């Protein structure tokens, strides 16, 4: 997969650069007492990411050149991307809702919605699978951990 090597390598090296040039100088803080300043270990990590990311990207690039391939493909499969992306979007939206409602109350709907989206149509499966886990959570949190409804 030379193409994904190229882009993922660039992404890692890019993150390393951002970390080294922006995050560490601004957010690492300082410690006048320490022989090892707080930015030292993060900087080492950033350098590892830059070097290894660059090597991975270079390896991908060389193989692309050798095979005469373009770094991007023309046939992007939007269906495949959609299939990969929707669960993330679905769970992210669910988490956004969880800032307003407790997960115990929302859980059944989150599970049921995803079951339907994944192709489950038998109503008894949907009801059973979506009600039992939140009920278990309610029992766990309220009666066993005694932390109240989460």
């Amino acid at each position, binding site marked *: 997969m030379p193409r994904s090597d190229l882009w993922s390598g660039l992404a890692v090296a890019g993150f390393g650069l951002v970390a080294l040039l922006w995050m560490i100088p601004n957010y690492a803080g300082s410690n006048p007492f320490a022989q090892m300043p707080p930015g030292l*270990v993060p900087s080492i990590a950033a350098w590892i990411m830059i070097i*290894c990311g660059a090597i991975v990207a270079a390896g991908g690039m060389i193989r692309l050149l050798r095979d005469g391939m373009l770094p991007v493909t023309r046939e992007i499969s939007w269906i495949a991307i959609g299939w990969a992306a929707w*669960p993330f979007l679905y769970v992210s939206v669910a988490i956004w809702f969880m800032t307003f409602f407790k997960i115990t109350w929302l859980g059944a709907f989150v599970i049921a919605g995803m079951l339907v989206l994944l192709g489950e149509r038998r109503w008894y499966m949907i009801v059973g699978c979506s009600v039992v*886990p939140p009920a278990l959570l309610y029992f766990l949190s309220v009666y066993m951990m005694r932390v109240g409804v989460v």
Partner: protein
Amino acid sequence: MDFSAIGAAASEALTLASFIGIGGGVLLGYIIGVIPGLSRSVAISIAIPMTFYMSPYIAISFLIGLSKGTAAGSAVSAILLNAPGEASSAATALDGYPMAKKGKPKTALQVGLIASVLGDIMATIILIFVAIPFARVALLFGPYEMAAILAFALVFIAGLSSGSLFKGLAAGGLGIFLGTVGLDNQTGLPRLTFGYTELMDGMPLIAVAIGTLALSEMFIQSEKLRLERTTMSVKLEHRPDDHITFPIFKRILPTILRGTGVGTFVGALPGLGPSVGSFMSYGMAQKASKTPENFGKGEPIGIAASESADNAVIPAALIPLFGLGIPGNVSAALLIGAFAIHGITVGPLLLRDSPELLYSIFAGMILASIIMFILGWFGLMVFAQITRVPPHVVIPIVIFFCLAGMMLQGYGTFGLVILMAFALLGYLMKKYDYSFVTFLVAFIITPMLELNLRQSIILSRGNWEILLGRPIALFFIVCTLLALIMLTLRTVRTGKPAAGAATD
């Protein structure tokens, strides 16, 4: 040793109430361990309020049974769903899931269970008969030694990544970077927290572990559903050859012994924790094997190595706790609290003041291992039914438990956002073949390594000669250097075709 005390202890261990208490603890732990997303710390915080109402002996055995149960239970989800509940079971999934997919889920589970129980019982026996008088040996491991061991573990485990070495190292770099988030432990000033109070104690390990291990796997599987809906689930058929045989047992036994040794050593040193133990053991098994290329493709030895060490850490973490009063890891620290609520101060005094209680607890621990074996053996049949549930039903439920497990830890919605970010990271790493094992281990080891390194530098006042008086540290430094050289050699040999492919 006082034999009348042991006799009395054994008789208390064998009452009906203690059977119920310990069995309940093991069962509860096992169930919680099986559910990905609910981890050992959830199990113990569930249990502490319950133990208020038990006698001290039952309460403690209940809690120890519980942590043993979760360690064994998390192997089940690692093997059947590829979604380990704990970071320490991630090594189990490396071989367990491929083995289950090859049509031998029951064998994989049995190997895991036998390795767990044997590792556990042997480490308990070491704890009882050998370790407490020798707990002081742990004090020989000062900051220099710990820094050397941690550096060795980091380099050694980084060398395990099966795919591209540079990708593995890049993932390790990211793990190190994220591991440095949190308050500076000397000045108390925030480092890389970006102003979020929640990050002051670092990226929550639970979010990192659940996100990259369990939740990301669910996203991978839901993506796969599109094309391979019928072929992807682990099929539990009644195959006559799907059970553990004596030749397999004979093959894994040396590995279990080594795993127990590694786990006991790691557990007895305060701070290292079960993940380091299970990955070290896995790596050593791979290095010792004549066919290392089979690892990661369903090698029972891999399962045995990881599980035996993971379970041996739990009793071994009690060695410094009972011998010195220093908890070996987080769950041992929780036990201190449970002891204190029952009016018992843990430490060397316990052996002197109430040996009877201590021996009762030991007897309870052995009993817990036996109960775990029986429960696990029959539980296999029940838990293996998980594989009959089609993946499109498992996925939403596991996602729910991952979110719920995070909420139960009290991090709030912020914790869920972090969890989601790490799930995305884990998804990308798995998809593009960046070793999430290296990432996770680097993330766990970095804070400890940095602290011990700092302490060593300050204590030595920059004087390197101090190491000459520290043979143990010197030994591990040499090991680290050897591991580094081997890693470089491997890079030169195997890294070349990847980087310089155009030349051939």
